[in-house]
């Protein structure tokens, strides 16, 4: 376990402090209807929110800190200054500190590029547990958590629905199609969080007030060459017009003889 060991008086009290990082991304709300302008995504009219899966990552960090007895939860985002709002929300939920890894072009970064940037920034720090949402609901690449872990050379368990950590050993469960896997690893470790892992808490008024005084560090980073070029963006293919049928018998006939899917 690569935990920081703090020695306090009396000298025989050795305290393991779990260093936890929860990664958050600001995304267009899932209830938003996105626009496409000049073959590019236009989110200027969208409401934004913390990626829903990242809320599970924030919550899990707070819970694992409680289980460990001592630790620091740092909420991290790779974005421009806009994401200070989302980081303040993470602080209001209970994170101890926030880190903005800042580049004004961060929104153009694909998952592989983001993983490279985050691994570079986090690799210089002490960490035991890295928590990610299993995907961001905007670009949906499922790639940042396993990408960061691979670049840092630590194990990663994705789409986790149950997590327990004891004595530096991690046991996690994940749903795969039609089965549940149990996976074990040692700290330091990365986890990507799936719905079902926990119920994220809402910030309290006290938490919101406290968040204003918590540290929000900002570091500027260079943007590497993008690993993915978006050439154009298009709406989903239009569906042919459908029709209303009168009853189940007519429907089954249409499915069998017209659409031929039964």
């Amino acid at each position, binding site marked *: 376990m690569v935990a920081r060991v703090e020695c306090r008086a009396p000298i025989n009290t050795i305290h393991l402090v779990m260093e936890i990082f929860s990664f958050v991304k600001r995304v267009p709300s899932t209830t938003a209807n996105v626009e496409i302008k000049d073959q590019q995504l236009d989110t200027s009219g969208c409401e934004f929110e913390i990626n829903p899966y990242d809320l599970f990552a924030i919550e899990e960090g707070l819970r694992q800190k409680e289980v460990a007895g001592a630790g620091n939860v740092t909420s991290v985002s790779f974005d421009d200054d806009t994401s200070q709002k989302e980081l303040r929300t993470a602080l209001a939920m209970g994170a101890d500190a926030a880190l903005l890894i800042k580049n004004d072009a961060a929104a153009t970064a694909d998952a592989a590029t983001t993983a490279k940037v985050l691994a570079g920034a986090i690799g210089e720090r002490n960490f035991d547990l890295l928590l990610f949402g299993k995907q961001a609901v905007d670009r949906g690449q499922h790639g940042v958590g396993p990408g960061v872990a691979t670049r840092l050379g630590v194990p990663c368990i994705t789409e986790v629905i149950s997590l327990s950590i004891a004595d530096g050993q991690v046991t996690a469960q994940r749903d795969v199609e*039609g089965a*549940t896997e149990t996976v074990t690893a040692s700290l330091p470790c990365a986890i990507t969080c799936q719905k079902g892992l926990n119920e994220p808490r809402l910030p309290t008024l006290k938490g919101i007030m406290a968040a204003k005084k918590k540290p929000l560090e900002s570091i500027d980073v260079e943007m590497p060459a993008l690993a993915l070029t978006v050439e154009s963006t298009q709406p*989903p293919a239009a569906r042919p017009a459908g029709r209303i049928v009168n*009853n189940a018998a007519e*429907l089954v006939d249409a499915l069998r003889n017209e659409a031929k*899917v039964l």
Partner: protein
Amino acid sequence: MSSVLVILETRNGELRPACLETVGAARLVADAKGCNVIALATESANIDAAVVGGAGADQLMVTSADSHSADAAAATIARITGETDADVVLLAATVRGRDITPRVAALLDTGFAADCTAVDTSSMVFTRPICGGKAFNNVRVNGPVAVASLRSNFFAPANREHAAEVSEVPSETAKAQVSEIAAQSGGRPDVAEASIVVAGGRGMGSEENWGLLEAVADAIPGSGLGASRAVVDSGWRPHSEQVGQTGKTVSPELYIAAGISGAIQHLAGMRSSKVIVAINKDADAPIFKHATYGIVGDAVEVLPELASELTK
């Protein structure tokens, strides 16, 4: 000479059939490039070289590893990519494929295109959904190797007679270990893999009414069950059945939406289904705008009639 590497997905020693579609896509890419398709299984499994060859592979590489670890699989894939001079690596966009794909890209210091629904084999531009299917990006992977995962039901295995030439390759060691893979009860295919999905929403009225939906699914062999977010959030159904932007994205041959109004998050997850049936008592429900066939009526009343008609 370069090659196209395609990853075979196995579980508990058996091939997962969905990955044969990816083998078929690899064949199309390799034909456009004029090179071979090499299929790789990263763990020991019972694999028929004629099945993999028939789906499009020229060669089949297997390991004797008994580990299902994703990091070991990624390390083996990255090493074989170098050894075979592959410049395209394709995986199925399953839970496992989505887990391994970014690791392979990181090991090769290259980019990846996730969850692709199309690939232009002449330009190697991949089409992939964003915002849960509300829009699509056409992307080009930068870097020495184009790594991509492909969605199921968008590609097809080649249909040919060919036994792939088999060779054994060494595997890499694991960091995280899979200690158990327990099959879930129910016996139905997972909603993400089923070719026919029968899904229910709030309009089903109650958890107890799910028997009506199951009766329809029972009448259609090979169908899986799906649910809307509202139903999952109410605890009526497990999250593994949730379809939508914060659940699974599906594109079956037939999607039956019973008592689902068609919130934008749900539509995002199922709008690429080939045929959509909507059953809803509200004639103005947004789901009807996307449906191939609609019945305006209470799902609780229509479903028993549908189950009865299907068994006629």
